[in-house]
């Protein structure tokens, strides 16, 4: 019962937050910029063109009416037309959103895959050099500017070693000569569905560097959290008992201690997903990844506010929903959460 009340309360709060977010995006995208009509009218507009644009955009209507129009449009998925390309933004989003989500999901998996084992190793060698090195690494991962790490990875793996592609989502040969039919929009899944394993390998190779860039920070956090959870658990009696029974150290660490230290994993998933959505703006430009981040950065340069507003809305809603799901999952795993 408590659990149900908690879940309902969280859902209600999320709904409220989404309304607030819509209002804030409206204010920043439509009220703050000096003259949206001049931007809408295109380069070097005449006075009549601007006036026409004012009417088309309904800029003379009172603010609350404009917000109502904006909110209804957003709710129905009508994000309007891009000032720059005059294309439907909703259609662009459909093409770009899966690319960003693919990157976010993959980098989250990578962060857990790197961070958790390192945390286990650090806990097992507590206070010794492996632990210290790991701690330093996790601090360094936080301090590293995302855009700079991306460039270093490109330099090492693409330029010097030449083992991974420099940028893009698929090789040009594949994209041009035998394009993948878009089913889900996730290249890895689409390639399997189409039974094209050469494309799968190519897509995977393109995914690694950008995902690694985005995974470094959450992997550092995952490592720290796993380490402290493991240190606590390694002192418990069932571990002492396992040691007394003569089980091998890896088996104790990964078989008996780690499953009890998985609490932080959920936190890391949420954090990593959020970080990937945000970091996408920087990483997608550098790796020429055709996702929302690159889309929005091009819109910034063109002052294309409908696009900026649409991307902010969509990404923020993904973020709010993700946080809601994580909170609910956490309450299900540990009912004490709902009571606090």
């Amino acid at each position: 019962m408590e659990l149900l009340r908690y879940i309902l309360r969280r859902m209600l709060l999320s709904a409220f937050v989404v309304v607030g977010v819509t209002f804030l995006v409206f204010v920043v995208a439509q009220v703050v910029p000096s003259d949206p009509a001049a931007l809408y009218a295109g380069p070097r507009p005449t006075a009549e063109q601007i006036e026409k644009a004012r009417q088309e955009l309904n800029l003379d209507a009172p603010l609350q009416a404009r917000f109502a129009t904006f909110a209804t449009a957003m709710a129905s998925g009508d994000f309007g037309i891009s000032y720059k390309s005059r294309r439907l933004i909703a259609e662009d989003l459909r093409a770009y959103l899966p690319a960003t989500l693919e990157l976010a999901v993959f980098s989250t998996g990578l962060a857990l895959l790197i961070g958790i084992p390192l945390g286990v190793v650090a806990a097992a060698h507590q206070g010794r050099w492996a632990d210290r090195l790991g701690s330093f690494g996790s601090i360094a991962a936080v301090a590293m500017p995302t855009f700079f790490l991306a460039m270093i990875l490109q330099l090492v793996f693409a330029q010097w070693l030449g083992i991974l592609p420099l940028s893009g989502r698929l090789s040009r040969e594949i994209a041009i000569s035998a394009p993948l039919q878009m089913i889900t929009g996730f290249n890895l899944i689409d390639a399997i569905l189409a039974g094209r394993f050469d494309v799968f390998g190519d897509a995977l190779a393109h995914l690694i560097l950008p995902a690694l860039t985005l995974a470094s920070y959450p992997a550092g956090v995952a490592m720290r959290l796993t380490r402290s959870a493991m240190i606590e658990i390694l002192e418990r009696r069932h571990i002492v008992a396992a040691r007394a029974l003569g089980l091998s150290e890896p088996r104790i660490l990964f078989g008996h201690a780690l499953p009890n230290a998985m609490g932080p994993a959920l936190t890391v998933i949420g954090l990593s997903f959020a970080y990937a959505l945000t970091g996408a703006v920087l990483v997608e430009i550098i790796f020429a990844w055709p996702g929302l981040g690159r889309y929005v950065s091009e819109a910034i340069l063109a002052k294309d506010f409908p696009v900026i507003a649409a991307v902010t809305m969509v990404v923020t809603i993904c973020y709010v929903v993700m946080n809601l799901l994580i909170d609910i999952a956490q309450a299900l795993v540990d009912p004490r959460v709902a009571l606090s």
Partner: protein
Amino acid sequence: MKKLVHRLGIPGSIALAIVTLFVLVAILAPWIAPYPLQGAGAPNVIAKLQPPSASYWLGTDHLGRDILSRIIYGTRVSLTNGLLIVAFSLLIGLPVGLAAGYFGGWIDEALMRGTDVFLAFPALLLAVLMAAALGPGFLNSIIAVAVTWWPWYARLARAEVLVLRGQPYVEAARLSGVSHPRIIIRHILPATGRPLTVQAALDVGPALLTAAALSFLGLGILPPTADWGQMVDAGRKFFPARWWYSAMPGMTIFIIALAFSVLGDALRDRKGGASRASA
């Protein structure tokens, strides 16, 4: 000196030394930069994109300017960025948090739900949206980041006030008829100020990192003023063949952010020890 090293540990002390060094560099920029004019933006077309050498220690950029001098001048922008972002955020977050915590009830509910809305955004994205709306520029980029930053201070201040509100000395002041604003300013603010200032000082590093990301996106201070994030972006066109152009300012951002976060860890450890001892 010895006492300080003991308190912060060796990594913490090195970090403090690095941060101090950057502050000095920022203050003394015109006197220590090898080419002050180029640091301030004057082009030097006879030495375009030269690799690091005896006369240009960190190489030159596409306008032939000495990268070391540009980085030294950029220190001013970056540190001011970090400081002002934190200061602006405190200016908004502190009053909101104080009022929410002190008055409670519907005021608290309204202020904190408003805060939640700002926290619902992925931080960099809201900053990008703000910066795009305000247009690029030094002050605008600072405001854009502060808009995403203040809710943390509001939450922190509120949590502190909730503890203080029930303290006997606050009760006593209220019973003797001291007005609300006076209680908040004279009796609560001084006690919350301390932990918040420590937090804020440590946030200068992450704030500076966010500002660097904005200027990398072209939403920061405009050239010819030297700015690290913008230098990394400008160097990208010549990367990796002329790697030093991006790599040197990139490394600089990394070093200062690392110093701040190591220092933060050292201070947190120390604070934890101190509070345990006093309890």
